[in-house]
């Protein structure tokens, strides 16, 4: 066997969630990534988010492209269907899957090579179409599986492990997502679980194109001095705009905050995003101001994290296409084939 069997033993004290599932029920196969890889922390955050959301695992489909990050869907949510597709093309596959059945939750996992280089076009077009999905880029600025080449999110001046300096401008996926009309845009850090888990929960509950750029250092090829994607560098330059508490629909809101400190955003499904502001002039429901703020802070060398933009009432691709509520993959033969009488009328019109 070339996979590692995971023992099915459960700790007897594991807490079940509202559906009776424990955290283990949301796990997947044993990760084959390097020890200490940031991506594994993101997988753990996804597991935690799904567990806390009481998500039925089979109601989510996980899709990815190619690369280290794209291998990870095998390592979480083992009871969900997964699709490791082709390099840079996860967004189109996810779009098709979403069109086929609008009732499932779609989680796309990709990397900076997968989404910022070969797949930049599909990244852009899936977002501008408003596909209802959570799109996570596990961003380490480097090609890991092919051993350490720069990716398109590497910052100019950043040094590779072999000492080569990158001179190309970096692609800022968060800036692009904002400009392309994503209705939920966030950035986080694999090393900050407290920040990441609520963001993933909020994104999964969001209707529309939700994008999260997660800085996820590559311990093997991009965690050295001179890299701008190392654990140390990201920690030193992390500028969180806010802290998010995700409150599920119908949950009671208890804590009281002084006005101006907290912003409550109610999403389409009734879930509440409680944002504790860390940057007082930041307005996360205003796309233009978010774009300006982002540029300003990035120009100062800060890595801006947090929930950067949300449109809680966004429409999605199905709204634009005006498709039926019943999933297309469940329409019956009678609903699909118009029948011989209609065909006879068509024949008559062609004579």
């Amino acid at each position: 066997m070339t996979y590692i069997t995971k023992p099915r033993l459960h700790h007897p004290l594991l807490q079940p969630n509202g559906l009776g599932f424990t955290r283990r029920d949301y796990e997947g196969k044993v990760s084959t990534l390097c020890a200490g890889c940031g991506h594994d922390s993101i997988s753990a955050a996804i597991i935690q988010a799904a567990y806390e959301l009481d998500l039925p695992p089979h109601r989510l489909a996980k899709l990815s492209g190619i690369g280290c990050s794209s291998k990870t869907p095998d390592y979480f949510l083992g009871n969900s269907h997964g699709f490791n597709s082709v390099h840079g093309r996860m967004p189109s596959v996810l779009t098709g899957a979403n069109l086929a059945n609008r009732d499932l939750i779609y989680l796309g996992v990709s990397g900076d090579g997968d989404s910022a280089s070969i797949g930049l076009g599909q990244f852009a077009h899936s977002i501008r179409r408003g596909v209802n999905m959570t799109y996570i880029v596990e961003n380490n600025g480097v090609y890991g599986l092919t051993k350490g080449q720069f990716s398109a999110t590497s910052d100019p001046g950043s040094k590779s492990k072999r000492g080569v300096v990158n001179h190309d401008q970096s692609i800022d996926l968060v800036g692009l997502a904002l400009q392309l009309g994503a209705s939920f845009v966030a950035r986080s850090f694999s090393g900050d679980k407290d920040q990441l888990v609520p963001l993933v929960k909020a994104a999964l509950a969001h209707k529309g194109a939700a994008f999260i750029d997660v800085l996820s250092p590559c311990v093997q090829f991009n965690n050295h001095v001179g890299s701008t994607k190392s654990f140390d560098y990201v920690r030193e330059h992390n500028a969180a705009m806010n802290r998010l508490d995700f409150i599920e629909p119908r949950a009671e809101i208890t804590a009281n905050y002084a006005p101006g400190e907290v912003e409550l955003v109610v999403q389409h499904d009734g879930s509440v995003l409680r944002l504790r502001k860390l940057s007082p002039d930041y307005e996360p429901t205003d796309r233009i101001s978010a774009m300006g703020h982002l540029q300003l802070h990035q120009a100062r060398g800060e890595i801006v994290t947090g929930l950067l933009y949300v449109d809680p009432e966004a429409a999605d691709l199905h709204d634009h296409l005006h498709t039926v509520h019943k999933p297309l993959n469940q329409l019956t033969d009678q609903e699909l084939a118009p029948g011989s009488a209609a065909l006879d009328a068509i024949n008559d019109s062609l004579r």
Partner: protein
Amino acid sequence: MSLTAVNDFVVKFANVNGSGSASANGMFAKSILRMGVPVAARNIFPSNIQGLPTWYEVRISEAGRLGRRGGVDLMVAMNPQTWDQDVASIEPGGYLFYDSTKPLPPSKFRTDIEIIGLPLTAICNAAYTDPRQRQLFKNIIYVGALAYLIGIETEVLDTLVREEFGSKPKLIGSNLHALGLGRDAAAQTFGAPIGLQMRRSEAVGDRIYVEGNTAAALGAVYGGATVCAWYPITPSTSLAEAFTEHCQKLRIDPATGEAKFAIVQAEDEIASIGIVVGAGWNGARAFTCTSGPGISLMQEFVGLSYFAEIPAVIFDVQRGGPSTGMPTRTQQSDILLAAYASHGDTKHPLLFPEDPAECFDFGALAFDLADRLQTTIFVMLDLDIGMNEWLCRPFKWDDARKLDHGKVMTYDELEAGRDFGRYLDVDGDGIAYRTLPGVHPDRGAYFTRGTSRDPYARYSEEGSVYVGNMERLLRKFETAKSLIPAPIARPAKRRTPHGVIYFGSTTPAMHESLELLDADNVHVDGLRVRGFPFNDEVMDFIAAHETVFVVEQNRDAQLRTLLMVEGGVDPAKLIPVLGYDGSPITARFITDEISKRLRGLTRAPTPLVAE
């Protein structure tokens, strides 16, 4: 001696692209049909919106010979740019109809043809002042003149005008007026019709007149397609557009106005096929339509569909090579590209419709095959079938027909504890069961990858596991042979050691050629191949003949290559007959090529006009 014929001749219109000639020429062809006489009209057009030469060739044949014959009996020469070649293409004794407003030197004409000059521009300028009207109505005027000259009933054309402009009564009057101007001018100028004549007939029967792209799109509707992702490319664009129109009429929920379909114009062909693969993985019937360059771009995903076993349908409306120019001309040149698309060891089922009626049938069947075989099915149209209106049998649908969704394991089966291995061959036909996302809370989920997994979809890079899977895929391809529509034989009048294999849009020209050869005591058995992998009947046919011609519209004899490779056929036995200049292959060309080889000489020219 001028040609004389009734209900059997070729009219060709030479026009300037963008001059509004298409609708006038279309009306001309349709009027022939309405007189009950079979017609085949082919548009030969440039990769251009306005200014370049365009032709419209109308074959009128009471006998129902609807392929291109070759040669022109009546040329309507409306384009000075192509005058010389147009005049040269007329059969001896044929007719040249032209706009005689500007005098042309005698050197511009031929003495062995009949010259029919009418001052169309002058007539038009006298009747209209608006420049656009002058241009558009000139086309209608020549249709009126031709109607007089070849005997198209006035009432037939008038009815067509009323149908065409039903919602715009103003245009009805002005078009009727223009038809009358042409008819009267021709009557006054010539006083008598020409030797080529139309006569009312019943030969059309219940046949319909439709483009293959429209028919294939309708087939997709009946075949249950719900997701269409596409990128504009000639000559396939009208297939996606027709699907959109059909769905607007046939697939809107009357109660809610909601769509029982999703159509996405993607950013490129790669995204198009990606969307199709994603939808197919998730259990919706999905397709894209494209042409050769699009197939090139889709290669990686087609391979993924093959290895990950995901249903997909691709309509390939074939055309000439890359870039611009030949892309608006027809060819059958993507056969090998499609059959062996992608990297690694792959091969894919192909369907070859002969006409729009079969485009409809195969358009629907392709989705059943894709689900049954869990792979990409190519429906191989070409520009000639796809973008020209063909006269064909009416579409048929059996209301008792159930869509075949193939092997999909259900919640109940999983709940009952049925063993599920995504790549496990339980029935010996090479086809494994699949599950759809969301089917069951804790059974049936699997992780989809290209290769490197065992029959239970667990990660594995072991060589023996890989080989086992690849051999199962071969078994599945073997199963496909019995599902692909069988070939259709057309035996010669007498027993013969010679056979001919052909497919797709070549069919009507081939059938005419077989009739001509038979009449000439050259006997050749015909076999129309309808798909790939080849059914056993195809190989039996080859084995039963000493020589087999393979007629195709490409340079490299691609179907012949496929027959050689897949059937282990001796190359010496298969003789290629190849017409690939971009215009649809003609009966005369095929007849000449086969005669040449069988008799070692070029046959005498066929009589051009029926006695």
